[in-house]
């Protein structure tokens, strides 16, 4: 991408924080755009769910967009991620197109998983996204294994594993981080600590205050960042990626954030207060980033508006595309269980 002509010295200068120093205006604006894309995608998805256009269940990450984008914005298609049940943001962050995501929600052949997976399994291997996962903690060994494959083929790629605060109490967390620690694998564990695993607060589920504390048990750095600040998240990622690429092994990054929507549709929010939710809504990462970019002169108000309008249009078109998609036919039920041509 071309360096932005509008970059101001206060951001690019020697005192600029690394997030601004290392990214040009186009990259920063693209990051903002993707955050909006996640937000609007999820709002639209929720709407279509309420209207009965989608079935199954759905977990929204509204409020957590800075983490998804802060983590993914510097990854290439050769870097892997494993995602979670709350994975729309990761998917968009890694480069997926929302049209195929909507198509998946509608159970269409055009969907990323040809309608077989739905929201909880959405994946895009072409961009290195090995998929959301319906099993809490299920992606932890998988990302660790992807990192092993990277190490075996001796490239400089990394594997990134998203997981929640709830997942940190699964045995899979412990076993994966230990293996990565012993084998010095190029994997970055990103804990999206949104304070709750479904209805149970970290105070009630997790014996320590910060998940990052546990990193010490696996011989890796554990850092806590403000997950609602894309700059904080991204700078932690830079350090972790450098470490991984140098063969120094894994890092655990804990992003403190919050989901302002319920866990899923069945949630009556009995376990938290309205005030708490309102407080966090005030810390919405998207307007904050939008403001920063303007304050720093990376982007004008008009550009900001254009970004939003572009997102709006993309969402609308994607939605229409998905609605017009093709339903699977019953006779395709048994396709893609086994690889065609193999014994089955």
């Amino acid at each position, binding site marked *: 991408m071309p360096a932005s002509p509008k970059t101001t010295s206060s951001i690019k200068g020697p005192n600029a924080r690394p997030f601004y120093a290392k990214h040009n205006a186009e990259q920063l604006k693209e990051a903002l755009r993707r955050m909006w894309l996640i937000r609007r995608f999820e709002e639209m998805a929720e709407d279509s769910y309420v209207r009965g256009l989608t079935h199954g269940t759905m977990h929204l990450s509204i409020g957590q967009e800075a983490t998804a984008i802060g983590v993914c914005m510097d990854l290439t298609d050769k870097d892997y991620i494993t995602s979670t049940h709350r994975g729309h943001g990761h998917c968009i962050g890694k480069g997926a197109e929302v049209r195929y995501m909507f198509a998946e929600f509608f159970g269409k052949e055009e969907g990323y998983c040809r309608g077989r*997976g739905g929201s909880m399994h959405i994946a895009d291997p072409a961009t290195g996204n090995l998929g959301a996962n319906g*099993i809490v903690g299920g992606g932890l060994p998988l990302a660790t294994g992807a990192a092993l494959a990277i190490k075996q083929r001796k490239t400089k790629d990394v594997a990134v594993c998203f997981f929640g605060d709830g997942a940190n*109490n699964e045995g899979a967390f412990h076993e994966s981080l230990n293996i990565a620690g012993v084998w010095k694998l190029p994997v970055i564990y990103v804990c999206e600590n949104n304070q709750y695993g479904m209805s*149970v607060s970290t105070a009630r589920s997790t014996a320590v205050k910060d998940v990052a504390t546990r990193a010490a048990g696996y011989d890796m750095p554990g850092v806590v960042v403000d997950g609602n600040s894309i700059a904080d998240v991204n700078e932690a990622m830079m350090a972790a990626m450098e470490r991984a690429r140098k063969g120094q092994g894994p890092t655990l990054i804990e992003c403190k954030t919050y989901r302002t929507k319920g866990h899923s549709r069945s949630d009556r929010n009995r376990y938290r207060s309205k005030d708490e939710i309102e407080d966090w809504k005030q810390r919405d990462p998207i307007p904050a980033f939008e403001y920063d970019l303007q304050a720093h002169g990376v982007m004008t108000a008009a550009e900001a508006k254009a970004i939003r309008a572009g997102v709006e249009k993309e969402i609308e078109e994607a939605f229409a595309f998905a609605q017009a998609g093709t339903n699977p036919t019953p006779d395709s039920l048994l396709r893609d*269980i086994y690889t065609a041509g193999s014994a089955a």
Partner: protein
Amino acid sequence: MSVRELSFAQAIQEALAQAMEVDPRVFLMGEDIGVYGGAFQVTGDLVHRFGEDRVMDTPISELGGAGVAVGAAIAGSRPVYEFQFSDFSTLAMEQIVNQAAKMRYMLGGKVSVPIVFRMPCGSGTGAAAQHSQSLEAWFGHVPGLKVVEPSTPEDAKGLILAAIDDPDPVLVFEHKLLYKIKGNVPEIMYRTPIGKAVVRRNGKDATVVASAIMVHKALEAAEALAKEGIDIEVIDLRSIRPIDGATIIESVKKTTRLACIYEGVKTLGIGAEISAMIAESEAFDYLDAPIMRLGGAETPIPYSPILEKVAVPQVDGITDALRNLVKGGF
């Protein structure tokens, strides 16, 4: 004796409440079973009635949670552990199968393991492959466990109470689509015997053995066929380990035809056992037709609602299959 209409979920909740009321050793463990009320609202408001010490939200730790419950059971408590979805029991197989099931035997009968595992199962909710499995056949294969699968609110309550009373580990499979169905449920504390099937519909032309939600589908199919003059006997299996062979054999001797209908994957599913049990029994000589199995398709459960529906037996397919079975069109 007072009888009311309750939903399947309410019936289970009532059983849990009554058991906790009369026995201070009984307590509940699971993910989000407290203030959230459980993913399917089975525990509901019980935490307010019995407190957080007896309705315990666990961390998301199925191996640890189930194993802690097993340890508590061995040490004298009476835990009821809820898996939020039975699919997550894949994380706890070690504690269920190597520890809970075998502990009594390995220790020469010197301990018992009075634990109940609640196992919400089945497809039909659009939750896709990792949240829709029917894994009861696995547990039916494990000596030391008992496995039941109620189809009505009345049996749900009675089997939960029987399971809590039982000195050995019992898994109760609860099909998620049944939670909202309603039925008559007596108010008193009664037990539905573990290991006993029940004939839900008498008939003379063929025997259907079904379990959980398939009982309802089979009954619907039977009603449709009745209009064609075909008379189907429907047995509700209820218990998968032990299986009530006697009830099935007796029925097959009468009807001379057998179909097994189940939602789990057909291959090595519970219908395989029922078929094999009959094929090696004295009922074999009475059979006038091959034994039919209608089970889940050989696939992970798809998300697409169109595909999800064809992945498990539905009423129309069952009706057609039973008609063929009776008419001999093999």
